[in-house]
């Protein structure tokens, strides 16, 4: 055997012990050892804080949540047994989320389609993308004040209650719902646009080769294939709407129950005021009128449960998308 050629035993791979031998921290410099310690503390600490928050809210929620709280309406009262449950805030959350997402979906999907499929002239596309980024970066309290400014115009008087002196109240489910759609818009737009850009070019080209117009390919080929991206975006938007408090506090009128405005059945409800889970928690905490921390804990537990469930749904959709279509998020064939 040639002395220079490696022998058979040397060619065998060394046994893998995980990532191979690492230098022991005992031989490092002090600064690096401190960094190692702090990195572990930071990482584990964040996980511990997250677990602590969820577990604490869970404990308090189980302690204070009674099923009758979910079914009974809130009332004004002096003692805990008289103030009722939070059915109206639950309904308010559901209604507000519905309005917000119904307004956001057409706006976001249409803009995402235009930006990724048409997008000429290109400066207009950049303007549209920048404005969505600006909306995403605006604090929700500023969006709420903007909503107040708009809906207190006399032009929008039919959307809320008008006082006898002529002043438009400006606070109603429609007002809050429209501003909530601005909150849900950026995640939905981003998810849809990323999904559209991930669709491989050969799918579009096949449709064009068969003689389809661009709008027909959008309708028959592209939209069905980004269904799960839109679903992810909708779920993200819904979880942002559910968790938002500032817009509700400013734009929903903070009445304990759902108060309809006028006698027309559905329109009256939309023009009226109410409350949601978030404003209910805020009002019952020591920061609001606050004598009812137990109710606040119960409502907060329900809120957190919803948000965590929505998070799980987003995870599921992401995983099933990768499995079902055989495409990874980058569009490559698995």
């Amino acid at each position: 055997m040639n002395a220079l050629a490696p022998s058979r035993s040397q060619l065998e791979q060394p046994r893998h012990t995980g990532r191979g031998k690492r230098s022991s921290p005992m031989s490092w410099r002090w600064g690096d050892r401190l960094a190692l310690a702090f990195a572990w503390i930071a990482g584990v600490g964040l996980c511990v804080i997250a677990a602590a928050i969820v577990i604490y809210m869970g404990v308090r929620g189980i302690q204070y949540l009674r099923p009758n709280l979910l079914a009974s309406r809130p009332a004004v009262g002096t003692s805990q047994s008289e103030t009722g449950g939070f059915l109206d805030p639950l309904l308010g959350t559901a209604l507000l989320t519905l309005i917000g997402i119904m307004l956001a979906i057409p706006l976001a999907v249409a803009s995402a389609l235009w930006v990724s499929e048409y997008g000429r002239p290109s400066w207009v596309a950049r303007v549209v993308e920048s404005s969505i980024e600006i909306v995403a970066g605006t604090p929700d309290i500023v969006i709420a004040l903007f909503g107040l400014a708009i809906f207190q115009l006399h032009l929008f008087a039919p959307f809320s209650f008008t006082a006898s002196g002529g002043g438009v109240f400006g606070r109603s489910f429609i007002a809050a719902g429209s501003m909530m759609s601005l909150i849900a818009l950026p995640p939905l737009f981003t998810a849809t646009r990323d999904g559209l850009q991930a669709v491989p070019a050969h799918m579009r080209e096949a449709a064009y080769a068969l003689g389809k117009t661009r709008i027909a390919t959008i309708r028959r080929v592209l939209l069905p294939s980004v269904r799960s991206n839109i679903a992810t975006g909708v779920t993200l938007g819904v979880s942002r709407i559910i968790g938002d408090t500032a817009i509700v506090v400013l734009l929903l009128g903070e009445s304990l129950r759902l108060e309809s405005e006028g006698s027309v059945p559905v329109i009256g409800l939309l023009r009226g005021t109410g409350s949601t889970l978030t404003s209910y928690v805020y009002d019952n905490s020591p920061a609001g009128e606050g004598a009812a921390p137990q109710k606040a804990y119960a409502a907060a537990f329900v809120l957190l449960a919803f948000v965590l469930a929505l998070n799980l749904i987003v995870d599921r959709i992401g995983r099933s998308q990768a499995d079902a279509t055989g495409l990874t998020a980058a569009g490559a064939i698995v």
Partner: protein
Amino acid sequence: MLRRLRDPWPDHRAELTLGAVSLLLAVLVVAMLVFVAVHAWPTFQHNGLSWLGGGGNLETQIANMQTTGQHAPASAYKLSAWPFIYGTLLSTAVAVVLGLAVAVLSSIFIVELAPSRLRRIAIPVIRVLASVPSVIYGLIGVLVLVPFVGNHLITGGEKSSVQNVVELTGAGLLVTVAILTVMITPIMVALICEAFVSVPNSWREGAIALGVNPVRAMLAVTVRAARPAIVAAVVLATARALGEAIMISMVSGSRSFVPKPVDGLIFFFEPLRTLASAIVDYHEGVGAPALSSTLYALALLLLFSAFALSIAGYLIKLPLRRFQVRG
């Protein structure tokens, strides 16, 4: 005409319709700026630039606005907004600096140091932290942390030493900054982890091959290469911290006070108020023109700082562009 709508649309019409819907969004953003500026104008007209300055008791100025009601004389518009601006700057700056340190270290932990089982748990857990609504953070703050600080961390002597000026209830700078840091760190961790993962492995392995230990290799190579993403994460986190209204309104003590570092340890327990939490606290007074104009002026200041933040982030990333990871 209905037949025209039912037939397949020509591309031209579809493009114009979709484009109009997209432009609607841009128009909305411009409208937002215009409306807020128009409503804020009376305050600046009566105050000028001294509005940003200090001096004057904020609480009496706002009470004055609320009592003069519908027909406010020019003197009712007077306000010195510096306590709000200072509170915002202080809480945001400290929270972002702390959060950045924790986020970079946690990202190093997740990407490099964690055993794979711990890493699989840590990623969803931190995502949960990012999606908790701010009112729940505020609730835990006001019902757990504030009594803890008020009863166990602030001594009776400290409370009585300042009782003529301000009441130390535990709600103040310390709890605000602590919760704000916990709120913005997950945002930064998500972005920074993504950036760390996209740096080519061979760069870090080259450092290790030269004998550098893993932690120092991460710091010297990966963190340096991910600087544009770290800047983006800081911009995003600062925007979130600036706009946080509800949580701060619950735990910051609701007194328009200017915490002074010369007060020593008491500095951490002093109450404060930020721009956003002031809007939430006084939102019922939006019927009185003077107070309404003031609130819109605060919102305008917040809008400008959000704009300035994105521009600053863009400018900071410009010289870093040549270090951008390619592919």
